[in-house]
């Protein structure tokens, strides 16, 4: 029964969605459980290793509001952690205590910070520490503190050799995990490791051509390596054309195409337009029409602008009704442009 409860808690924490700003609070278990029955130091009060420590209770003042119903294990562990913090004791047992706290609340940034202080003080094996972080990543892959901690370790070790493989592995369970892509990007830039990155994004897109994160990463890679030269824009657009042909209404692909188009330096508008018109002749793709409007708006000839107006009308009334007000707004912008010209 204990193990089943443990698994339930893991799943709950793992699936808890952490939206980005400014939340950094993880869930607190309502029941006691032991992660590793042989490794936990709880209960501390009867643990001879901790007999010298006077636990420090949380001080919420005389009139606490919205008090959290902490589990006994959570409260006691934190009481001992507060005591250790006050002492600034950077010892092996303190390091283990940090693990306990992180297990109870992986977003406790103080525990992560103190953990790093202990690692430094104890001159710990950072490669082992990297293993520890990797293990808990699989439980809480969307935790900011964990990924920053990993970054520090990689920095201190000055060794990125595991990172590309590790990030690829985590992406296998969630190919759009923002933290993972962010970390991978950091590794690329910090260590100037770009070989194989384009190919990596290609393989991710082969698995799922709607992976917006993979497109974004590809853009960043190109930007940092070759840059968007005429040749690169040509080869990249061919690449995206293929993907669009497979899924003509894939917003991520069209956004990437627009990104290439917006680099502005080379007027390959004709090729982009030809392709888009081609798509439209086969499928009534909303994003294709939307992109065509953008191309036509760049052209400035009345005939093009008037055509763009017609497309907006069609999108608003038929193809993209949910955005009818938006297409009316774009139509207004174009009419304004016609007047201005």
């Amino acid at each position, binding site marked *: 029964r204990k193990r089943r409860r443990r698994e339930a808690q893991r799943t709950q924490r793992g699936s808890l969605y952490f*939206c*980005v*700003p400014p939340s950094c609070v993880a869930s607190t278990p309502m029941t006691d459980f032991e992660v590793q029955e042989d490794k936990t130091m709880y209960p501390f009060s009867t643990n001879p290793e901790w007999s010298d420590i006077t636990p420090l209770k949380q001080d919420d003042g005389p009139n606490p509001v919205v008090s959290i119903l902490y589990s006994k294990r959570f409260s006691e562990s934190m009481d001992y952690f507060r005591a250790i913090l006050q002492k600034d004791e950077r010892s092996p047992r303190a390091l283990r205590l940090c693990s306990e706290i992180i297990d109870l609340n992986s977003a406790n*940034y103080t525990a992560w910070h103190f953990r790093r202080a202990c690692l430094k003080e104890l001159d710990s094996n950072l490669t082992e520490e990297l293993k520890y972080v990797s293990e808990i990543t699989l439980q809480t892959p969307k935790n900011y503190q964990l990924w920053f901690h990993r970054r520090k370790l990689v920095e201190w070790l000055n060794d990125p050799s595991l990172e590309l493989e590790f990030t690829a592995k985590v992406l296998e369970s969630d190919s759009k995990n923002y933290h993972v892509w962010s970390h991978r990007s950091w590794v690329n830039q910090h260590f100037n490791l770009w070989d194989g990155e384009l190919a990596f994004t290609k393989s991710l897109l082969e698995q799922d051509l709607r992976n917006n994160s993979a497109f*974004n990463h590809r853009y960043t890679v190109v930007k940092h390596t070759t840059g968007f030269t005429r040749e690169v824009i040509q080869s990249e657009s061919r690449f995206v054309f293929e993907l669009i042909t497979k899924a003509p209404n894939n917003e991520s692909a069209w956004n990437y195409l627009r990104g290439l188009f917006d680099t502005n330096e080379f007027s390959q508008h004709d090729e982009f337009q030809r392709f888009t018109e081609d798509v439209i002749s086969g499928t009534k793709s909303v994003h294709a029409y939307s992109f065509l409007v953008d191309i036509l708006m760049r052209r400035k000839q009345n005939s093009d602008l008037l055509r763009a107006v017609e497309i907006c009308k069609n999108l608003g009334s038929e193809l993209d009704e949910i955005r009818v007000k938006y297409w009316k*707004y774009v139509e207004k912008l174009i009419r304004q442009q016609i007047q201005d010209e």
Partner: protein
Amino acid sequence: HIAMSYTALSVLKIVGDDFSRLNRKSIINALRSLQCDNGSFMPVATESENDMRFVFCACAISEMLHDWSGFDPKKAVEFIVESQSYDGGFGLRRGTEGHGGSTYCAVAALSLLGAIDSVRDRTGLIRWCISRQGDGFSGRPNKSSDSCYSFWIGATLKMLDAYDLTCPERNREFNMSCQSSFGGFGKVPEARPDLLHSYMGLCGLSLMGLDDLQKIDPVFGFGVRAAAHDPLEHLKTTRGSKSPSS
């Protein structure tokens, strides 16, 4: 922690505190040690990650205390502007994927800085936000709707004067379907409700204006009544302007 400072000050405004017991100087001085060379902010002075979430927090804190002396606003604006993705949305920092949460933080921070015109591609930003609507709103292209984005994206559009371009009826339908049978909102229909989605889902509904809810200030993310409670109003420099540079 900068997010805790932002939250604490917000709560004080909401409950109508007079701010007299605050050590305002120390809060503002702390911001100085939190700003990075690239204009971004860390949440704590001991080394930590830095990104758009905390840029917003720094700006909100400065506005609530009417004291912009704690950091370099030009660098902050530069950091924000550089974080706009090729697809129009804002990432957590330069080069990262456009995301609803970071987009909100970016646009709200720029609003507070009086620098919303610094956005390089306003058209693209509006297009990106409007495209986030499926039934409800998603946080990124090709991801499913999630009730909290009715606020992150909704508030962003409000700040850009483009909220009227959305379809509130469909948005409302989605949010309501995320309401659990025993109360609260989850991120998607059938999901367990949680505080964050309940808060954001309600804010999103308020923005839609279709239910009898108090109006939400899109910049701060709490009610306009609370936002108007301004015990330090006498410290405001220029009337109607939130810009430290005006």
